[in-house]
């Protein structure tokens, strides 16, 4: 590696850094679920694709240097603009943003910067004397380092505005390095001005009528505490978590589950506010384990408590454990509970969905004493449970029923589900007696609530309604997550999306049909090569998404590792490009890598067993993609290699876009991981067949 390579590596590093930063900011502004990741990634890839396609037109000297200046000038405004989206739309404080606006504003905010980033690639190719494989490799190395840098160093320590300032500064420096003109140095003042402006503006306009008293980054997202009168409200990545003080809610969250349990002695509480623990500790019990993944949320919520309440939590019976609760329940080693309480939000993200699946319930059951109970609550409804909520809550109900012998429900206004191997009593009189016998003092909670929550007629009505739902929620097929997405789409008035989600089979057939059609249309040598680039973009990105979502399903928060898994993938791409740069006979290598990809996809469930194997899978996935890209590039030796590089990259990105978009939004949530793998295998098989059919064709 020489000095000449440096700008290309820098390009890779800064573009991945600003990408991750923008992604996290967008997630926080849109209070996003995984749909937002898909939308952002797809918009990102399309814009970059457009840029790279247009890039070959720029031939002037120093074009690459000017592109660095453009990135430097755009990265901070992009982050600032994202922070201004809410006020621009005049969205209320705490109001969710409709999907259409989410897509629209993601496009607007990312487009300028991403097009420039896209332009950079062909410019880098021509800067390196037309060596596309080298450019690809160097950029990948940069992206790998950027991803690693973010995951291990920056995440949770450095604010988005600092990162965007750093990106800006580094790009200016790269431009100065390329042009070697000192007069550019004063430009460095611009990022600094922006830096001090951004934070002020962003926090001033973001929250109407509430006062931001704390903002910090954790590895799991951006945590904010907003004050309304005396009440502090905790947000993570723009999503409301809980308020303090909120005695009414805290008491409800503790005394209903405790009263439903006949003799609670050892209790496991998953998620929620630490102040709820004080209510549990009022009881005469043996131990409480409280599990929450984000240590910063624990620290911050502890900090919100007045000294007296914090003192009360200094109790020998209480263990506070900062880990992923799924990991925790898997490694219990003989510890058993009488009562497991889920204090989580509904399964509207792939992450929270992990706590409402058959697999989790089985793990929970293994951690229960004889007659132990699991207690959870889902969003309430009033008067009528709509069809989509019926399906969403019904799939959780069915999953509980699959694992436990008895499942009891509350009235719809409370959304409570309780499951156990033994009988559960929800007779209001029994609960009332239990509660009063235990002699607990409360401010707002009163046993009349049992009569409201467990009124016979209402319980029956809910059960009848939920029993009509057929779906079961599992790790591999997150039905509850899907129906919650539909519910969300309905709530936002996105009838199109809701309908699309509902008629998923038609959608699937249409996709396969279109695929066959496009394959048929591409029955020529050159087009087939482009198609293989497209399909490799598609499959490698879809595969990456499958890996990420499978990782999420078995190990928890994906943000912690999203940078690393992506980085390992990029490393694989770079290695693949490097290995294959000297290939003579490209077509056999392309076919070889297609065939290997099919095999790898089919074998991938074996890799989902152990954490380290996820990285191996991502690496091999990248490696094969790298080999195929590079081989296809050699195969497509056209007259104008720069032109080919631009179009080539565009095809790659179009494929990647579709891969990311369809996989995260439709395929995995709708059809489950296994069917998605089958779909990707199908595409690869078609490509392989096409390549096979042209092997004797003359150019």
């Amino acid at each position: 590696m020489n000095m000449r390579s440096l700008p290309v590596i820098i390009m890779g590093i800064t573009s991945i850094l600003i990408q991750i930063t923008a992604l996290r900011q967008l997630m926080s502004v849109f209070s996003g679920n995984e749909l937002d990741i898909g939308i952002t990634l797809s918009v990102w890839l399309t814009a970059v694709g457009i840029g790279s396609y247009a890039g070959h037109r720029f031939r002037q000297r120093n074009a690459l240097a000017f592109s660095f200046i453009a990135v430097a000038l755009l990265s901070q405004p992009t982050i600032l603009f994202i922070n201004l989206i809410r006020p621009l739309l005049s969205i209320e404080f705490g109001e969710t943003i409709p999907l259409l606006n989410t897509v629209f504003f993601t496009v607007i905010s990312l487009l300028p910067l991403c097009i420039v980033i896209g332009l950079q690639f062909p410019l880098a190719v021509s800067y390196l004397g037309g060596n596309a494989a080298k450019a690809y490799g160097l950029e990948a190395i940069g992206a790998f380092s950027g991803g690693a840098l973010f995951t291990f160093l920056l995440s949770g320590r450095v604010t988005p505005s600092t990162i965007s300032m750093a990106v800006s500064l580094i790009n200016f420096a790269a431009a100065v390095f390329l042009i070697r003109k000192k007069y550019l140095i004063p430009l460095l003042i611009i990022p600094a001005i922006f830096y001090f402006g951004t934070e002020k503006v962003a926090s001033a306009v973001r929250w109407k009528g509430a006062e931001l008293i704390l903002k910090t980054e954790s590895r799991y997202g951006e945590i904010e505490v907003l004050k309304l009168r005396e009440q502090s409200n905790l947000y993570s990545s723009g999503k409301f978590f809980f308020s303090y003080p909120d005695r009414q809610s805290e008491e409800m969250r503790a005394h209903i589950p405790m009263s439903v349990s006949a003799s609670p002695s050892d209790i496991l509480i998953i998620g929620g506010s630490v102040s709820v623990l004080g209510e549990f500790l009022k009881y005469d019990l043996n131990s409480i384990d409280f599990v929450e993944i984000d240590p910063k949320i624990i620290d911050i919520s502890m900090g919100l408590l007045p000294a007296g309440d914090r003192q009360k939590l200094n109790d020998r019976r209480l263990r506070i454990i900062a880990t992923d609760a799924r990991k925790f329940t898997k490694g219990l080693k003989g510890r058993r509970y009488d009562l497991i309480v889920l204090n989580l939000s509904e399964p509207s993200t792939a992450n929270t969905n992990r706590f409402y699946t058959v697999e989790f319930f089985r793990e929970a059951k293994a951690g229960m004493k004889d007659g132990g109970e699991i207690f959870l609550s889902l969003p309430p409804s009033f008067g009528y449970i709509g069809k989509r909520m019926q399906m969403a809550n019904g799939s959780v109900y069915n999953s509980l029923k699959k694992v436990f012998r008895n499942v009891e429900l509350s009235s719809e206004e409370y959304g409570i589900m309780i499951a156990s191997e033994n009988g559960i009593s929800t007779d209001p009189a029994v609960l009332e007696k239990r509660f009063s016998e235990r002699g607990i003092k409360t401010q707002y909670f009163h046993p009349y609530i049992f009569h409201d929550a467990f009124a016979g007629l209402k319980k029956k009505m809910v059960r009848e309604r939920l029993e009509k739902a057929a779906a079961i929620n599992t790790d591999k097929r997150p039905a509850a997550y899907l129906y919650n997405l539909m519910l969300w789409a309905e709530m936002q008035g996105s009838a199109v999306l809701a309908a699309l989600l509902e008629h998923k089979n038609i959608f699937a057939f249409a996709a396969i049909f279109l695929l066959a059609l496009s394959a048929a249309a591409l029955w020529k040598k050159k087009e087939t090569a482009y198609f293989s680039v497209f399909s490799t973009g598609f499959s490698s990105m879809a595969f990456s998404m499958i890996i990420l979502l499978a990782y999420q399903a078995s190990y928890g928060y994906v943000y912690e590792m999203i940078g690393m898994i992506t980085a390992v993938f990029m490393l694989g791409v770079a290695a693949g490009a490097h290995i294959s740069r000297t290939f003579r006979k490209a077509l056999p290598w392309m076919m070889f890598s297609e065939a290997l990809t099919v095999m790898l996809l089919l074998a991938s469930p074996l890799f989902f067993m152990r954490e380290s194997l996820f990285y191996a899978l991502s690496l091999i996935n990248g490696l094969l993609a790298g080999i195929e890209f590079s081989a296809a590039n050699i195969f497509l030796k056209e007259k104008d290699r720069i032109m080919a590089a631009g179009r080539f990259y565009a095809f790659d990105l179009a494929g990647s876009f579709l891969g990311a978009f369809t996989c995260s939004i439709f395929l995995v949530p709708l059809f489950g991981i296994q069917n998605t793998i089958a779909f990707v295998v199908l595409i690869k098989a078609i490509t392989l067949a096409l390549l096979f059919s042209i092997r004797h064709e003359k150019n």
Partner: protein
Amino acid sequence: MGKKVQCDLCPTECVLEDYQVGGCRVRINKGGTLYSLVYGKPCAVAVDPIEKKPFFHFLPATTAFSIATAGCVLGCKFCQNWQISQADPEDTDNLDLPPDDVVRQAIFYNCRTITYTYTEPTVFYEYMYDTAKIARRFNIKNTMHTCGYINEKPLRELSKFMDAADVDLKAFTEDFYSRICGGRLKPVLDALVVLREEGVWLEITNLIISTLNDDIKKIREMCSWIVKNLGPDVPIHFSRFFPNYKLKDLPPTPMETMKNARSAAMDAGMRYVYLGNMRSEAENTYCHRCKNLIIERHGYFVKQNNISNGRCRFCNTSIPGVWS
């Protein structure tokens, strides 16, 4: 042409082309005639304590047969019932329950009243009207929980059969109504006055939402208006907002705000101010004259009742409301 129709039921006053459905989602113009799509087709049917509606001065400790259909005249961002109120009638699972069957069921379940509630009963006006007429013949009372977004003429007509109404006065600014609900405040205030004039027993509910309508000055202004135009005897229920529908990331209202609202209302001269859904002394009724506890409630359940013949058992003052 000649097939355009204007609906005069609610202040939105939609003008509908042939085969167009109104903003409420349940009224359709078919060949120049307006039809209701939800007549006899409720999707929510339940038996609830009347206190849950909420009515605190209307036949305490009795049950209400409650019905609703899909549709609503407004589109509030905080709606609890958005799954029905913002749904088309063909998308909900509806029962077949003509007016006489509603009354039959109410009698079967021993309900003293039928309540038209959950969504906005204005949208199923004809169904409500016919049911109320029959119910009255069988000595069953009619009550509704409404947002009061209805024109004067239909409201006066309905008032003939309506015994009580709980009106959601959602805020006291036009800005709130237009930004958050997609409606106007003025018609709601007018409807309140009409109900008062027609002698329908009135209670008011006000949901307090942080940052949107929690300005104590405005709350005081609203209460003064009520005292002046409707009298000090109208009970008001302040209820606490919990994250819901489009406002999922807005925190629950601080308790402090709730308590401040209550004292503001009492300062303005209102005699019966309740905090809904919160266990406190603010869910009991105290005689406005002797201040003694006359109805003790635990949530929706009445523990003791010291009213006889509509009078306070301690000082014999007449307590406003419908007691038998």
